[in-house]
C-alpha cells in the first residue's frame, strides 16, 4: 500500500511538472536552462562586476586617466608601484598616469567596441543572410559569392589600411570591424532561413497575403533570434580581441583614450624593466572578461540552440 501511494505521489508530481512545463514559453525555458549552468551564471556575475568597475571606478580615485602624477614621473618603477597610500591602487603607467583610472577607462572602450561591433554584425548579418536565404536562387548565389570573396580577404591588413587612410579614430574602428564582422553571421542566418522558409507558418503567411518584407521581419527573423543571440554573444569577445590586436600595434584608439589592448601593449613594452603591474592589471581584466564572455556564450548556446535539446 505504501509503495502504491508513493508511486501515485511521484506520478502526481510528474503531472504537475508536466503542466508547469507546458506553461513555460520558449524563452522562460531557455532562461531556466541558462541559470542552471553554474559557469555561465558565475561568468555573468563577474562580467557585471567588470562593467560596474568600468563605469564607477573613476569616482573611487582622486586621479583621472589623463592626469600625470609629477611626483613619481621620474621613477615610476619604484614609486609608481600599486599602493593604497599614494592613491594609485593599480600603480602608475610609464608616464606616471594612474593605472586604476586608465584600466577603468580602457574597459569602457573595450566593452563598448565589443558590444557595438557585435551589434553591427547582428543587424547587417541577420538582414543580409535572411534576404539571401529567403529569396534563394540567383540572388542568393550572388550575395553569398560576395560573402565568399570578402571572407578570403586578409581583413586585418585591410582594417589597418582603413585606419591609416582615414585616420585612427574609434568611429573608423567601428566601420572597419563592421565591415568584416557580419560575414559569418550572414552565413549562419542564411542557412537557418533556408530551413525556416519551407515551414508551414511561412506558407500560411504567404497565403494570408503578406509581402516579402513582412514575412522576413515578422516571421523569419523572430524565429532566428535564438541562434543570432548565441552567435552574437560569441562575437563580442572576438570583437574585443580584434580591437585589442589593433590597439596592441598602436593603430587603434588614440591617447588619452585607451583600451585593454593598448594597455597590455604599454605594459608588455615595459616588462623587462620589472614594472609587471603595468601588464598584469589590464591583462587580468582582459582575460577574465573574455573567459566570462565565452562561458556566457556557451551557456546561451546550451539554453537556446535547438539542436542540443
Amino acid at each position, binding site marked *: 500500500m505504501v509503495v502504491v501511494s508513493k508511486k501515485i505521489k511521484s506520478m502526481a508530481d510528474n503531472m504537475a511538472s508536466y503542466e508547469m512545463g507546458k506553461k513555460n514559453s520558449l524563452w522562460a525555458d531557455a532562461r531556466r536552462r541558462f541559470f542552471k549552468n553554474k559557469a555561465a551564471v558565475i561568468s555573468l556575475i563577474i562580467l557585471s562586476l567588470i562593467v560596474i568597475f568600468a563605469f564607477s571606478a573613476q569616482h573611487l580615485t582622486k586621479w583621472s586617466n589623463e592626469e600625470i602624477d609629477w611626483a613619481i614621473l621620474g621613477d615610476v618603477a619604484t614609486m609608481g608601484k600599486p599602493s593604497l597610500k599614494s592613491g594609485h591602487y593599480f600603480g602608475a603607467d610609464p608616464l606616471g598616469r594612474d593605472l586604476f583610472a586608465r584600466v577603468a577607462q580602457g574597459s569602457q572602450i573595450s566593452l563598448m567596441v565589443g558590444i557595438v561591433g557585435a551589434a553591427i554584425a547582428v543587424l547587417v548579418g541577420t538582414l543580409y543572410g535572411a534576404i539571401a536565404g529567403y529569396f534563394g536562387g540567383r540572388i542568393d548565389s550572388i550575395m553569398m559569392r560576395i560573402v*565568399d570573396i570578402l571572407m578570403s580577404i*586578409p581583413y586585418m591588413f585591410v582594417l*589597418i589600411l582603413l585606419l*591609416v*587612410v582615414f585616420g585612427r579614430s574609434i568611429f573608423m574602428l567601428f566601420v572597419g570591424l563592421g565591415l568584416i564582422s557580419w560575414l559569418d553571421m550572414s552565413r549562419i542566418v542564411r542557412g537557418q532561413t533556408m530551413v525556416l522558409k519551407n515551414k508551414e507558418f511561412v506558407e500560411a503567411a504567404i497565403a494570408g497575403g503578406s509581402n516579402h518584407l513582412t514575412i522576413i521581419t515578422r516571421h523569419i527573423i523572430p524565429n532566428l533570434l535564438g541562434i543570432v543571440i548565441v552567435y552574437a554573444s560569441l562575437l563580442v569577445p572576438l570583437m574585443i580581441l580584434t580591437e585589442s590586436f589593433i590597439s596592441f600595434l598602436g593603430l587603434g584608439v588614440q591617447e588619452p583614450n585607451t583600451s585593454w589592448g593598448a594597455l597590455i601593449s604599454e605594459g*608588455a613594452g615595459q*616588462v623587462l624593466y620589472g614594472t609587471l603591474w603595468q601588464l598584469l592589471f589590464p591583462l587580468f581584466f582582459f*582575460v577574465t572578461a573574455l573567459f566570462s564572455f565565452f562561458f556566457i556564450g556557451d551557456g546561451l548556446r546550451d539554453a537556446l540552440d535547438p539542436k542540443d535539446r
Partner: protein
Amino acid sequence: MFKFILKRLGVAIPTLLILIIFSFALMKLAPGGPFTSEKPLPPQVLANIEAKYGLDQPNYKQLTNYIVGIVTKGDFGPSFRYKDRSVNDIIAQGFPITLKYGIWSFILAVLVGVTLGIIAAVKHNSWIDYTAVGFSISAQVLPNFVMAPILVIIFTLWLNLLPGGGWNGGQWQYLVMPVIALATSYMASIARITRSSMLEVLNSNFIRTAKAKGLPNRVIIFKHALKPALLPVITYLGPTFVAMITGSVVIDMYFSTGGIGQMFVNAALNRDYSVIMGITILMGVLTVLFNLMVDVLYAWIDPKIRY
C-alpha cells in the same frame, strides 16, 4: 578535379582583383598625396616627382599599370618613403623571416594540436582529457599578443634563458618564443576540433565493428579512425594559416624579429601607401592560394565531396 580547381580559381581571381582595386581606391581617397609634407614642395618639384612615380596619369591608367606590373613582373612599384628601395626589396627582406617562424608555428600547432586532440578523445573523461579541454579553453583567451609578454616574463625576466627579442639570423634561441606565442591559440583550437571529431568517429558503427572483430586499439585508432577524424581539421588549416600570417604582425612588433609584419606596421605609421598595399596584396594572394590548396586537398581526401 581539374574543373573543380578551375571553378575555385574563378572565385580566387576576382577576389584578388577586388582586393587590389579596393586598396588602390583607399589609397587614392586618402587625404593628402604621398608627397605632402609639413613643408610644402614647390609645385614644379612636386609635379616632377609625381611624373617620376607616374602619379600624373589618370587614375584608371595608374591602376591598370599597377595590376599589369604585378601580374607580368611581380613588381609592386617603388616605396614612397625610401627613395632607394622598391616594395619588392622590402618584402624580400622581411618575408623569409616571417616564413621561417610561421612554418615552425604551423607545424607545432598542427602536430601538438592533433596529438593532444587524439589522446584526449581516446582517453575520454580521463585526467588527460580534462587537461586538454582546460588547455583549449584557456588558450582561447590567450592570443599571441598576450602570450608574447607572458613568455618574455617567464623565459627572459625570471629564468633568463632566452633573449627577449631580435632575430640574429634565426638561431633557435630567437625562434622559440615567437613560435610558441604564435602557435598556442591555434594549437588549442586544433586540439578541440580534433578531439570532438575523433570522439564522433570513435562512437560510429564501423569502429564498433572493428572492435567486435577484435582488432587491437592501435590499429583501430591509426588505421580506421584517424583519417575520417582529421577531415574537419583540414578545413581548419586554411584559417590557421591566415591567422598565422596575420599574427606575425604582433610577433614582429613585439620581438623585433624584422619580418613582414614589422615592415607593415612601420609603413602604416609612416603612411607609406605603396608598401602597405604591396604587403596587403601579397597576404591576399597567400591567403587565397592556401585556401585553394586546402580545398583541393579536402576534395581529394574526402570521397563524399563532389566537384
